[in-house]
């Protein structure tokens, strides 16, 4: 089915994605996250780089969450999802993962994303969310981003940078799964061919 989807225009679009560096995908992710509407590109890029480095340097931990699979990821526009209740669970969307694997073959990206690595990356990615929600890594990430929101004498209060945890999760997955490029490049390529019908708030306007 992707053969039909990979027309010349789509290939050109994906070619442009391929030429974009991994940090820039992090910038796009931040730019798509609410609360960053008025921030300039340089600042977002600095945050994206810091979050990426932070995620890449996170200690490798074995994922503990339960893994379940379902098949309606393309309709929802999702690759994977982490939910903490009732028990920490990683939901893998098999249809999106299958499309990802197929796309990797078609595009000749196998040297970046070895066979089965997308699934592995999804589990690793969601494991970071678990770590960032329940472990000390959360405040460490905040410190390293250095977004000061309040200063009183020598004391500084660091603010939360929405979306940084997502970049860190992708960087961690890239590192521990030995990927050649960020999962965000693959995500962007998938988005150009999958064009999910149903959306999250992103992309809608009042």
């Amino acid at each position, binding site marked *: 089915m992707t053969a039909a989807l990979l027309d010349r225009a789509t290939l050109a679009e994906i070619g442009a994605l391929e030429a974009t560096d991994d940090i820039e995908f992090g910038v796009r992710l931040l730019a*798509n996250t609410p609360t960053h509407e008025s921030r300039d590109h340089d600042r977002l890029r600095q945050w994206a780089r810091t979050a990426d480095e932070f995620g890449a340097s996170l200690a490798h931990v074995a994922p503990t969450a339960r893994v379940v699979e379902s098949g309606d990821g393309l309709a929802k526009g*999702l690759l994977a*999802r982490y939910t903490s209740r009732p028990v920490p669970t990683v939901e893998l969307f098999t249809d999106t993962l299958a499309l990802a694997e197929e796309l990797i073959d078609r595009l000749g990206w196998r040297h970046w994303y070895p066979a089965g690595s997308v699934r592995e990356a999804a589990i690793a990615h969601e494991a970071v969310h678990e770590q960032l929600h329940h472990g000390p890594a959360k405040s460490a990430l905040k410190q390293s981003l250095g977004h000061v929101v309040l200063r009183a004498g020598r004391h500084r209060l660091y603010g939360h940078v929405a979306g940084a945890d997502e970049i860190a999760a992708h960087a961690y997955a890239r590192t521990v799964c030995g990927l050649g490029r960020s999962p965000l490049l693959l995500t962007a390529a998938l988005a150009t061919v999958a064009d999910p019908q149903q959306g999250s708030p992103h*992309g809608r306007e009042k």
Partner: protein
Amino acid sequence: MGVVILLVMAVGVAAMLTRRLPTAFALTILAIVIAFLAGAPLTGENSVLDTVIQEGAPALAATMIAILLGSWLGKLLDETGIAGTLVRKIVEFGGDRPVVVALGVLAVSTLVGTVTGSAPAAMLAGIIGIPAMIAVGIPKVTAAGTILMGIAAGMPFELPIWQFFSTALELPVDTVRGFMLKLFPFALAAAILFVLIETRRRGVEHAWSLKSASAKPASRRKQLGDAPWYALLTPLVPLVLALGLDVAILPSMLAGVLYALVTTTRPGEMNKRLLRTLYGGFEIAAAPIVLFIAIGILLAAVKLPGAVEALEPLIKAVSPQNPVLFVVVFTLLVPLCLYRGPLNVFGLGAGIAGVLIAAGIYPAVAVLGIATSYNQVFGVSDPTSTQTVWSAQYAGVTPQQVMLRTLPYVWAVALGGFCVTAATYL
């Protein structure tokens, strides 16, 4: 004849339910049919043309102006970045604890809800608030519900609503305010419990979404800087004036408009911004104003002597006078204010409230208690009301999912409202 009128009302509800007719049109037609059934003449005293249409249509004029001012203020909160700044600050300060973010957005929704209710309030708080909550891991249904519960918590202090109940039920604003102050703790407690319980029950959720790396920024909203901190107090200005200093509703709201303007806008741009946001406000206020015209017409029809005479014995027969029974019956009837049902206060419910008062079945304050309690349910859970539909869809879930999750909480608010009513006014 009373039975025929009730049957006509049932047909009207069916027309609204099946969306064959927009609510405002259905109510107007209903009013005219009721007036004829009640034996009203075409013109003259207590007539269809002069009393029902000519006097009924502008009866809620003060409410319409209040709605317009609320929409104007809402537009200003949006355009000057005040609403956005509030949400951004909350995420920056509390972002690593999702429950703190949800409580903060709840507080913003409550404030915004006091200024302008329903859909404009949902958009104002939700456009940034919903994706911000989702970005920190709040599940979608909880995110949509938080906005709606917040707006409903602000509803007891929503000045246009005070104006509406004061005019529609012919009660002084003081009386309306007095009851709303008693209803507010229930609404607030339910909203806070919703956030605390639902975030605990549902935990956090993070999705690896296909859209996360898209090149087009999700929001093409104008790039707004932060509004200064003192501008963020804008929603409190009308409240402090109307609640604390007893200033009338319309001037209180105008003061809010002026405060937002002078704290955010350079003198040279004030005129332009005022006009632009005012005209934008008209657009937002159009739908509710049309509805209030229709409600005024319906109220005039059910208050016709002929209608009161026909309906009084019927309604008296089914209206509980015993306080305990009163609470039980009206609590059980809560679902009837959903799906454009007959007890929806912004529909046929207003007419029923009018009959209850005109026929002297309950004192007007007790009817106020019934109507405002139902309004708390309707404002959050009705899957056909604009704010619920908007919030749910914007969060990417269905209005029914939001209804099921929020209904237990707002049902409890209504129960609280009925208890207060029965204890104080029966």
